[in-house]
């Protein structure tokens, strides 16, 4: 019996020791932990800024941990459920809707002043606004898809779809692996650009899905026409293949997002960037745009507030915001950063600002998940000819409603 008692005592001791180690005194040295979803090169940029920041503030340490988009969300959720996790989460704004619904984050105005917020582009800030509060401090806005063309093949960016067909058809020769126009047609994030071009909106004001609409039928028809009627594109085209084709100079025009533009310049492509063309019977392709930024965990300890304030002041200063924004051709949110010569004279930034007007802000409410999941299978079915655009639109709407009810727990 004694053995059991002593053994359990030892165990209790071990557990309490490990428990203690988590609550180290924080008065002297404050550690700001951040979980982020940054591409590799942006991460290095962040580290450079962090190094300068820690030099200026020797009592603050910034630790970042990298996750992929989905892992960031799920890991933060499970950590927060146990009352743990990082102080800050950095990532795309669509997480804001999910994190506010499950009350995992706190408004940024708990840490920064209203005055500080005036430095930022109001439409970027409003991307992270839910129920009248700001939940995300954005550092870049963009993420929009644009038309990328190889200037060695296409002299001037086509403005309309018919113009595009004219110039692109010359290069379309799939048998020899050459293409005039390519994009990953099965990906809903690309598809919503056509939906928007026909005036479609995914939600009405009451957050009800609006997928069974005339705009949806037209957009689906157009998507299907790209290959069948206009003889452009390719069966089963995916992101990586379109990307590789363009980099190798085997595709004249592709559609890809702001995050990718610099990689084509690096690949030596004579790159032209333009808004998506106007579609037959519609307007310009209207892809989604969104912000990326910082969210503050509900469980961030009070004593870190001051340090966090300093962190924001430093990382979102015009200079540092510009540095982050220049990396990925996304527009800085700090208004003064947009005035800097480095930003003003940057080719990609110019393209970014030229195309951002032809975008719709992506809804950040959690219901969006159900929209994506509803679009994909029906879009695929229309492309492969298994269903008609009309039936697909009906089915999408049904699936979206089901999905939203599932999310709401009804």
């Amino acid at each position: 019996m004694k053995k059991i008692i002593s053994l359990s005592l030892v165990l209790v001791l071990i557990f309490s020791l490990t428990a203690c180690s988590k609550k180290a005194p924080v008065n002297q040295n404050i550690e700001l932990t951040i979980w982020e979803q940054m591409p590799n090169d942006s991460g290095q940029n962040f580290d450079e800024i962090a190094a300068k920041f820690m030099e200026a503030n020797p009592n603050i340490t910034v630790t970042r941990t990298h996750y992929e988009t989905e892992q960031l969300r799920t890991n933060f959720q499970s950590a927060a459920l146990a009352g743990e996790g990082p102080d800050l989460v950095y990532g795309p704004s669509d997480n804001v809707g999910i994190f506010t619904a499950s009350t995992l984050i706190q408004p940024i105005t708990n840490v920064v002043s209203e005055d500080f917020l005036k430095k930022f582009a109001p439409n970027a800030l409003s991307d992270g606004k839910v129920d009248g509060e700001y939940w995300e401090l954005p550092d870049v806005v963009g993420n929009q898809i644009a038309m990328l063309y190889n200037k060695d093949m296409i002299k001037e960016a086509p403005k309309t779809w018919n113009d595009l067909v004219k110039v692109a058809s010359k290069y379309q020769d799939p048998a020899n692996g050459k293409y005039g126009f390519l994009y990953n047609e099965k990906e809903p994030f690309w598809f919503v650009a056509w939906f928007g071009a026909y005036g479609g909106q995914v939600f009405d004001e009451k957050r009800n899905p609006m997928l069974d609409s005339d705009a949806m039928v037209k957009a689906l028809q157009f998507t299907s026409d790209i290959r069948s009627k206009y003889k452009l594109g390719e069966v089963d085209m995916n992101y990586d293949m379109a990307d590789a084709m363009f980099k190798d100079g085997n595709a004249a025009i592709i559609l890809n997002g702001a995050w990718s533009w610099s990689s084509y310049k690096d690949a030596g492509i004579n790159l032209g960037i333009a808004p998506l063309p106007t579609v037959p019977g519609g307007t310009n392709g209207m892809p989604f745009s969104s912000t990326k930024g910082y969210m503050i965990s509900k469980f961030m300890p009070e004593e870190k507030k001051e340090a966090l304030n300093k962190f924001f002041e430093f990382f979102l200063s015009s200079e540092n915001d510009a540095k982050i924004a220049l990396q990925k051709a996304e527009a800085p949110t700090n208004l003064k950063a947009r005035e800097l010569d480095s930003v003003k004279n940057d080719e990609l930034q110019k393209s970014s600002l030229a195309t951002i007007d032809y975008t719709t802000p992506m809804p950040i409410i959690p219901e969006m998940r159900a929209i994506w999941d509803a679009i994909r299978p029906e879009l695929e079915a229309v492309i492969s000819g298994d269903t008609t655009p009309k039936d697909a639109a009906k089915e999408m709407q049904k699936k979206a409603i089901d999905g939203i009810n599932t999310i709401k727990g009804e």
Partner: protein
Amino acid sequence: MSTLIGKFKTKRKPSSQLINKSTPYLYMMPAMIIMLGMVLYPFMYGVWLSFTNMSLTKFFNPDFIGLRNYIRLFQDGVIFSTFNRTIIWTFVNVFFHVSIGLFLAILLNRKLPGKSILRVLLIIPWAVPQYISALTWKSMFNYSYGAINIALKTLGFTPINWLSDPTMTFVGAIITNIWLGVPFMMMIALGGLQSIDASLYEAAEIDGASNFQKFKNITLPLLKPVMTPAIILGTVWTFNQINVIILIAGGFGNEKTQILVTEVYRLAFNFYRYGYAAAYSVVIFLMLLVFSLFYVRKTGIMKEVD
């Protein structure tokens, strides 16, 4: 075990009997505590979760809702078609894992030129990280540039739209998973084959047994104790295989390619229906439990252990 403790008993005084009896348990205690913490606690937590309505809006304060998740699950109806697909998925996969694995093991157990090279080649699918293999297969399924369609075209067949047609995507996932699962069964079977005494075959040969008779009456029965646990394991693994389907189908979008576990994952991490997803997992657990109990009883594999 009882004889061991019995020996201890006779050597010690009766007063220390309690300690004697608890000694084996004391030795096992560290492992038991870890098992309790790592297996039993999360399991019980999952069961508890299945009786609550934990979801996005009820993240920190879920309510206890009794059996409502389970009732909804069977009212929903999707579970039945998904269940059928899961059965097809599991059966086809395990069938080919075992038959191909056994076939290759028998080949490798014979005198073959270049056997060691062959063995390495056959184990490669197992050594390569699963998602790399799955993504490689996915590119091979590509319509215009995939190796499979190019081969089909060269042989004069019409290329198949693997990744756009949900049924074919599912077939593609099965092919990929068969390729991934064969090495495990082959290794197990090979181990079993090597432990069979060669004299049995010699005796059978003297009695004039044919090759098939030898296989049926010597190889199969003697492999049974090795293969049964492997088949149970393989079935549970395949039933719960989430990566291959998601990687080949490119996500959870199309419900015609989903099996039960991917559905659970979708409910929990796409739709944040933690309670409902937990109920789903409990049902899956019960299915696998019944299967394992039935299979164990039918094959009598655990008899010696009892």
